[in-house]
């Protein structure tokens, strides 16, 4: 299981805990993550403005991975979605691929032949590693933890770009990945709702109302933590949590963890190894599980 690791811009800067946990768990589960230093922007910020330019950026990254004969594994859902969507378009439309390649070749000298795949890291865990192997790797019992899964948008959609690997209306992959660790994945209202990150730049008040609603509901459902798979969602739920609390004069104190962090803890990794100290909202329960509860 070898993948080109696509870090993107946000994960290595704002969510180092995510990257640490991903690398640590991948190593233990036999996923070889290879860094390609030349990787550039996935194209997401340009997509709404200049679609072809965004496609070009994506194609460049795809071509770089293809040259190494590697499939791409990405941590960020936006990167995954953008690259996978571009890949899907380029693979399914020869004319488009030819057009894009002409531009790409002229600008960078690379060509993309449409031979690789793009997957989210969590999807790799779900499909390539599989629940059975994860079950075997679990050494620390997480039973008693009540966790709220948040899938976000681009992890699943558009469905065709993601090979319909999970049902976008009623996704199960993250729930299964949580329960296989022994924890409980709880039912709460509005699971499918977006974090609001996409409109943060345009309308802050609306954007913050969205994570607020989610936090309200997750707190009401009695969750110990919100489990996410995307650094953008983390910005909304964790980084903005204090702001939302101030704005709405309330207190949630809802820990937000990346799935690989949870997985690492269940596999017996230390709090340090999964980057738990970097999480802003502390979870006593998770620290206890990591054996650092008294520290």
């Amino acid at each position, binding site marked *: 299981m070898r993948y080109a690791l696509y870090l993107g811009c946000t994960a290595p800067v704002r969510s180092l805990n995510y990257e640490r946990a991903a690398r640590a768990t991948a190593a233990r589960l036999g996923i070889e993550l290879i860094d390609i230093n030349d990787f550039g922007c996935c194209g997401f910020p340009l997509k709404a403005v200049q679609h072809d330019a965004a496609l070009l950026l994506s194609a460049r990254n795809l071509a770089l991975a293809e040259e190494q004969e590697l499939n791409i594994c990405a941590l960020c859902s936006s990167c995954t979605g953008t690259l996978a969507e571009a890949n899907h378009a380029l693979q399914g439309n020869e004319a488009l691929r030819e057009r894009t390649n002409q531009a790409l070749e002229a600008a960078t000298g690379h060509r993309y032949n449409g031979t690789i795949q793009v997957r989210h890291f969590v999807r790799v865990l779900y499909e390539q590693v599989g629940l059975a192997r994860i079950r075997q790797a679990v050494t620390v019992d997480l039973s008693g933890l009540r966790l709220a899964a948040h899938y976000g948008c681009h992890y699943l959609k558009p469905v065709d770009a993601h090979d319909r690997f999970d049902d976008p209306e*009623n996704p199960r992959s993250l729930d299964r990945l949580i329960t296989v660790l022994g924890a409980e994945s709880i039912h709460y*209202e509005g699971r499918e709702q977006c974090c609001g990150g996409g409109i943060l730049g345009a309308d802050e008040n609306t954007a913050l109302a969205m994570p607020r609603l989610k936090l309200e509901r997750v707190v009401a459902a009695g969750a110990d933590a919100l489990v996410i798979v995307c650094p953008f969602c983390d910005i909304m739920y964790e980084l903005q949590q204090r702001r939302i609390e101030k704005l709405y004069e309330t207190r949630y104190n809802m820990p937000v963890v990346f799935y690989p962090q949870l997985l690492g803890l269940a596999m017996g990794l230390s709090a340090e190894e999964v980057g738990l100290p970097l999480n802003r909202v502390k979870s006593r329960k998770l620290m206890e599980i990591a054996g650092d509860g008294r520290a």
Partner: protein
Amino acid sequence: MAEPKVDAEVVASKPVGASLVVGGGIAGVQAALDLAGSGIKVYLLERSPTIGGKMAQLDKTFPTNDCAMCIISPKLVEAGRHPNIEIIATADLLKLEGEPGDFSATILRRPRYVDIDKCTACADCVAVCPIHVPSEFNEGLAQRTAIFKPYAQAIPNAYAVTKKGTSPCKATCPAGTSAQGYIALISEGRYEEALEVIKQYNPFPATVGRVCHHPCEGECNRGKVDKPVSICALKRFVADTVYDQWDAVNGQRQKSKGAEDQGVKELTPFPLAPQELPPEEKRRIAVVGSGPCGLTAAYFLARMGYQPTIFEALPVPGGMMRVGIPAYRLPRRVLRREIDEILSLGVELKLNHAVRDINQLFTDGYSAIFLAIGAHEAQHLAIPGEDAKGVFHGVPFLRSVSLGEEIRLGDQVVVAGGGNTAIDTARTALRLGSRDVTIIYRRTRAEMPANEWEIDQALEEGIKLEVLVQPMVVLSDDAGQITAVRCVRMQLGEPDASGRRRPIPIDGSEFDIPCDALVAAVAQAPEISFLNPDHRLEISRRGTFQVDPQTLATNRPGIFAGGDAAAGPGALIEAIAHGRRGALSIDRYLRGVPLLAPRELIPLPVAELTEAEIAEMRARGEVDLRPREEVPTVQPAERTADFREVELGLTAEQAHAEALRCLRCGLCSECYQCVLACKADAIDHQQAPYEQELKVGAVVLAPGYQLFDPSRYSALGYGRYPNVVTSMQFERLLSASGPTCGHVTRPSDRQEPKRIAFLQCIGSRDREHDYCSAVCCMYATKEAMLATEHIHGVECRVFMIDMRAFSKGFDAYFQRAQSQYGIQYSRSRIPAVAEDPATHNLRLVYETEDGRLCKDEFDLVVLSVGMEPASEALAQAAGIELDARGFCQTEPFKPVETTRPGVFVCGTFAEPKDIPDSVIQAGGAAAAALALVGQSRGTLVPPKEYPPETPVTPADEPRIGVFICSCGSNIAGVVDVAAVTKYAATLPNVVHAENTIYTCSADSLKLIQERVREKGLNRVIVSSCTPRTHEPIFRDTIREVGLNPYLFEMANIRDQDSWVHAKWPDRATAKARDLTRMAVARSRLLGPLYTQEQPLFHNALVIGGGVSGMTAALNLAEQGYDVTLVEREWELGGLVRRLHSTGEGADPQAFLQDLIGRVKSHPRIEALTGHELVKSSGFVGNFKTTIASRLDPTQRLIEHGVTIVATGGQVYRGRAHNYGADSRIMTQLDLEELLTAISDNPKSKIPVPHASGGRNLRSVVMVQCAGPWDEDGSDTPFYCSRICCSVAAKNALRLKELNPDMQVVVLYNRDIRTYGFLETLYTQAREAGVLFLHYQEGTRPQIGVNGQLQITVHDPLLGQDIAFNPDLLVLSSAIIPAEGSRELAEMLKFSCTLEGFFLEAHVKLQPVDFPAEGLFLAGLAHYPKLIDEAIAQAGAAAARAARILSKDALEVGGVVAQVDASKCTGCLTCVRICPFGAVQINPALTGVGEIAGAVEIAAAACRGCGLCPAECPAKAIQLQHFRDDQVLAKEEALFEAIATALAE
């Protein structure tokens, strides 16, 4: 496509007079009844255990709100009782070969495991079945047992067993023990029964429960969830528990006494016991060897009624159980108890009795011999020094210890070997006092054959294990006493023949283990050499008896061998399995039946559960997660001191928890509790599937549909949110016989929902389904209406795209739902449902018609799921083609023909449709089949024979039997039926009164017959429902026991009592008493009535020469009946003459010309055009109709047996839309002709009527629903003409084809009602750019014709008026009844609907019959419909008519009016009032006061309506069966109570 029409010449000889109908839903049942009614033998094939289909699941039916069960049940009973119909349930069609008229159908009959002929449906089996699964009939909302009958009125009225397969535990168990069965019983605390289950396979449950290697647990599906169920420990638990209970109750056991005295409960007879034993002299059996195999064989033989004798060489019985397994694993008392129990069954045991001469046993009178001598010969190590003192061998060593011989091993002991014998030896050595015990084994621990847990226990006890070590030499001292074992270390090489890696010695690794004793426990083998050499038995290379592995038969008849002696050394449970197998084989051998049962030859598959299935079971809450209960053991330090038992049993709590972990993989667990409970001996778990061949002339396919599974659209939350249910689930919630007894509650909290949302088009009209399911709009409307009746103050909202209320009475029903029931309708399609996790309420977001977004919360969401085809396999088997949607492929104008000649289709398999349309099409299919095989009618069916009638005269004392029906909860839920029954018994002349749950069910009918015989009843009364549906069944029931059918009386305590007085149970009970008393009073005066055979004319009159009339005529002619076809117009063809295209692009004119040609040329049809009816009289079988030519005054009298009315309809040409005022305003029919003119002359420009000045056509507006209701001051209510939407879409498409740039607008203010596959036309039209504009409901378009045409409508979405200036305005005009249809109705004496269409006998189930017999209805005269629908209906009418024409004679009389001429004054009142023209003055008679002439009533013409006796001023007429004295007796009985009360 091949021409499906079959000429008589093609069929070589006479066709087979039988038909196969596939599918037992309402369509299949109707087709079967129509065929059977014409004397054709019918095989009615049904997949499930019962006929009735989806209709039986419904609560009520639209638009009449009749109880679905109440109207279908009589049909099902009729099919079940029909002498010409053979219902074959749980069967599939596999193959259809042959030609039309002579098919050979191969069917697969799947086992039901219940013999239908024996089952009395008493439900005793249900009470004992421990397996509960979701009920399919109740759509998973309730549980049922594994043995079940879907619903009370099911036909065939018999139970069936659901088997998914053999559970892995049973499949893995060498003895085939139904582990799932005893576990299920343990979970219910039914320990004795659980033990019985084990003992059906194994007489040693306590023994095996201790020492079994339990391979079952390795295969247990629960292991996929967490860990396997502790099956073995549960077996031990239940055996120990029950033995303790019995012993406690009965005291200490004594060997000398009989079984019952010994505290051994008499077990219920072995379910596999033979019905008949061989004669006495053949019952003695010799069993050689008293090990587990021999004892088991003897046990089963004894239970089957044989006298086995066991010969045992040793001084103790038990074989390896006694002398091989050490006591710390198997305490001796446990084994002794189980052996004693076997002996107590009468088994003779001869100890110290080695058999040498087998032949002598036959000489001694044994009829069969079972050899079970085991494998007691130890194998040697074959190494130097093995003969030293202190060297022992495993099996003999353990035997010596077990027999109490004193053996000293010394302190240091080496045991060589890796099997259970080695472990047992080592642990025994420890218990004999040795301190240092070492096991040496030449491979690694992983390869050791010993049980894993036994090795663990040995190590816990301090035994050392040296692996990869092989003994080389035994070293001994001078005295020959062992001192050490020289060993060599090994390494593993390549795998050997056994698949294990071969151990290879490592050079130079020799070492010595000093020891006082070596026990070689490496292997054992059978010892056969002691037998006299003349046994003539084949011996295998391994030294075992050569046997058939399945039957255990040796090469010599009568000699069987099993256990280690046949299979080589094996596990205990394998030996026991052989013992049972041997007993079964010996029994079958002696009875001379095949040694293998059907099920043994065709075993069930192993029931595997996938991860997904397990996840689903967890989601449904059927599996609760809890850890496996582990078996506790005694601490190692304590246990090695002596031979005390190491493993302890489970506690009752542990056992219960453990049993609940079982996943019930096989569904039926084969616990055989039902077999034991069934008094009728009807259950047979040994049934296996088999194929059968049927010879038939024609085939009708009616397999129906499957409901769309909404969990596929996950956004709707079905399967996730408990309060999202399907419409069928909601039907079950509404049903009185449903899971909540009609009390509508929501699944999450059993509370009444106060707000219900219905979401339409779930699985219809979407990307995956380009069709409309045609029924959902109406059933949702019905369900919403019923919900308001069930729940006080409930609010129902239906979210829909269009309301497709397209058929007879539908729109009025829809209007009523809104105006009377307050149902709200929103035009919005809901894409997703959200749930509030706290309340489980459901949140919907929808758009209102003016574009606002609304959020709303509901307690319950009902998904109106659509129909999907589900018969791919059937299509393949029948050799027919499916269309792209997966429905049956049919061609235009051939609605009941498949792509294979002689194979016909009806019901929803052809296209989604409602019940009446299915019934109509079923009749059409039956007619088509009759055209093929009708000439062979009567060849394969025996006439129904009744016993001679018991004479009953007025002088005979009435002996009345009263049956009070509960009708499930329909009556019993309100009326105190027990009290009414008790009361009935007190009434005069009542000799018997009884309450029955469903009196109409087949078992109750049987019961009535029994009671008539046993109590000598001469009157029978049923207090139940309505005579309208049920009287014929009850009459026939008593006729079958020799009572005249008119000695039956019925009281309606349901429709007229429990239903209407549901809120006053006390008063309803009092009324039920009154009604029953009245019935009793009248029945005393009932007398027998008789019918006479009346000859009939075997020809038909068909009125109307359109497509319907011609089709009906042609069908009857093809069946061999003469037909007179009368048409008023000068030409045949009717409305279709003006049609030039269909939605599918077919050519109606070509079809019409062909049809007319065939009608005109058929020798049996006389087609009279330009003729009209003048007069009609007569009655069924003997109609006399006068017709007249419109040209000349000559009249003709036609005598005929039946009449089919197909007078058609006409297009409305009202002035409401300025029709006729301007040539640019036309009907769709006019447009058709215009378009045809264009197509015929494609090069010309489209000619536009002159008013537009000759421009080419650029713009067309169509207006839907143009009808008489649009006229000012009109009081005609709106009704939907059914076809106009699709005609508009079709013509709009044609316009777009001619000119894609043309503006085509369809204005509608109701809905676009393109039901079924017509939806495709609507979609295509929209894709082609046709604009469908919905304007404000309740308004009319404003039409201006000054110069330019101008049409203005108000668009509510835009909030403004929109105006069009088209070249043409096309009115989608209503179909109205044909001219003169009211007059015709009057002449033929039947009724019309409000709109003027003819009224059929029953909207749902008799859509082509008139109330009067012999008159049938088809085509537009019934209601507007498409050509194909009219063709099907014409066939249905012909099929119904053929039921009469096919009879040799009619039975007339019975309930008819009779005149007492001596009282007749000849006033003519009766002559004038009789609706049937049955009364005439006969001048030959003498009336009152000797006047000449009195009235006379023709019995055959009289329908017994009762008008004339009521009107006759002289009381000269009496209606038989309703005579004045009979009616007055009822009245008197009614007022008797009041009179008594007043008197007091």
